[in-house]
């Protein structure tokens, strides 16, 4: 590179508005959260006094319910990601291999729930899982059970709601990647004598990996902090971090504690890939 002042690339100029906006409205707020997490709560407006106090953090680390909520959130988010993957992969696969006509229809079918307010869709499950709701009625009709099961307000109902809400977020990235696949690779593999399961494991799956990764990211992290599903479908059971932060803020009006919880939550999220890297550390040839 020659010496002298570098001219400002037009890229930098165009990037300025978005960087500016996201800097102010996304990055800076997190600094505020950090600041408030060190404040002390008070009655009044605003309900905190700035300062440097680790009381909120001490309260969080000292109370088991926060750790329970975190572990529960991790568990539910992982299960949600896994289930959406299992349910969504066949959908994306069939869509990707379909002829343009059926494929467009299937895309439409995936998009309709995606664009229908998730609040309404979760509400639908409230009705379905009720004691007198359809699921119970069908089960009784089929003779599977005698009396209605308590399906609502359980961990199971939260899981169903989460999978339902996040399924399109897994299907669409998977579809985006799978639709670019060169299907002749599969034909070649079977020509070489590979049976379908082997082809799937050794060719389709690795090639679909970027889509799986993208979908998992779009599902796992937001699911960790999900509020609406556990609130409407979980009731008292299934305390999750999102719900806790909400309660600390709206119900207890303890902003510093909500902030400290948020900071801890962010730290956990950020350390997850690091944990993944530590576990996956092994010599790779030509990675």
């Amino acid at each position, binding site marked *: 590179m020659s010496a002298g002042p570098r001219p400002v*690339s*037009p*890229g*930098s100029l*165009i*990037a300025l*508005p*978005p*960087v500016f*906006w*996201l*800097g102010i*409205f*996304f990055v*800076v*707020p*997190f600094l505020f*959260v950090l*600041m408030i997490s060190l404040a002390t709560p008070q009655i009044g407006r*605003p309900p905190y006094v700035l300062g440097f106090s680790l009381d909120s953090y001490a309260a969080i680390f000292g109370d088991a319910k926060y750790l329970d909520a975190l572990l529960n959130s991790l568990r539910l988010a992982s299960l949600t990601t896994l289930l959406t993957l299992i349910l*969504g992969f*066949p*959908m994306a*696969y*069939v*869509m990707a291999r*379909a*002829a343009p006509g059926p494929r467009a229809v*299937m*895309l*439409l*079918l*995936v998009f*309709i729930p995606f*664009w229908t*307010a998730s*609040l*309404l*869709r979760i*509400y639908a499950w*409230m*009705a379905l899982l*009720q*004691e*007198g709701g*359809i699921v119970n009625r069908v089960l009784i009709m089929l003779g599977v059970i005698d009396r209605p099961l308590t399906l609502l307000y359980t961990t199971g109902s939260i899981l169903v709601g989460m999978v339902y809400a996040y399924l399109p977020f897994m299907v669409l990235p998977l579809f985006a990647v799978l639709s670019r696949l060169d299907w*002749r690779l599969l034909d070649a593999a079977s020509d070489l004598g590979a049976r379908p399961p082997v082809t799937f494991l050794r060719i389709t799956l690795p090639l679909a990996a970027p889509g799986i990764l993208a979908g998992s990211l*779009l599902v796992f*992290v*937001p699911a*960790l*902090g999900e*509020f*609406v599903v556990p609130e*409407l479908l979980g009731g008292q059971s299934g305390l999750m971090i*999102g719900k806790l*932060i909400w309660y600390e*803020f709206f119900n207890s009006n303890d902003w510093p504690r909500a*902030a400290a919880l*948020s900071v801890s939550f962010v730290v956990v999220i950020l350390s997850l890939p690091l944990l993944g890297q530590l576990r996956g550390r092994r010599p790779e040839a030509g990675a």
Partner: protein
Amino acid sequence: MSRRYAWPALVLACVGFAFLYVPLFTLVAYSFNESQRVTMWTRFSTRWYAALAGSQELIDATLMSVKIATLSATMAVIVGTAAAIALARYKRFRGRGLLMLAVTVPLATPEVLIGFSLLLLFVGLGIERGVLTVVIAHTTLGIAYVTVVVQARLASFDRSLEEAAADLGGRPLAVFKLVTLPLLMPGLVAGWLLTFVLSLDDLVLANFVNGPGTSTLPMVVFGRVRTGLSPEVNALAAIFIAFVTVTLAVVLLLERSNTAHAAAQD
């Protein structure tokens, strides 16, 4: 080319689609139920739709939500397209890494965090909460989605059209306005619609950064639903689903006729 799906894939896919649609069907079905209870079907009735139309609270909330959604979508498209262009067209510039991070992280951040942090910002800076703050929140999230969509659109572009226009003497701004922008339009529209729907649906962000007297539709629905079932919500849901279905079907048909038209011209 033969299209063989192993039958397990087809069956599982059908299960997936059925899973997506059964709740939607029940929503619509029960919106026409005379009885208030979900547990039994009495007879066909449109009383809940009438109740919906008569509910001032719901109407005001809907108008409020539509207003906020329109503003947010428009802002998000403007800012997000800038980000997408910067990322797709300029491979090295100062701040590129930062921009990439800034537009992807919101997609993977729980809304509770975004909402809470924005609220602290507004309170800390003394910004009064109301329509403006909700628009800011929705725009911030929308930018991430718009950038992804427009970037994808830019990547699938044929740059030779722009180069041809430039060769014919067009200055960069003119080339952008007359060639790039029209070709980008489907992506811009998609991004706009995406943000619009996101904003219309959002409960968490709105709850955190909203001000008194500006209730959005999700806030009102949530308030009603929290305590139990409410058939007007079913009616609302049915209308919503119908609207989304019709819009998407129209978009789909337009897109198909567009590509058919373009193909016919070759």
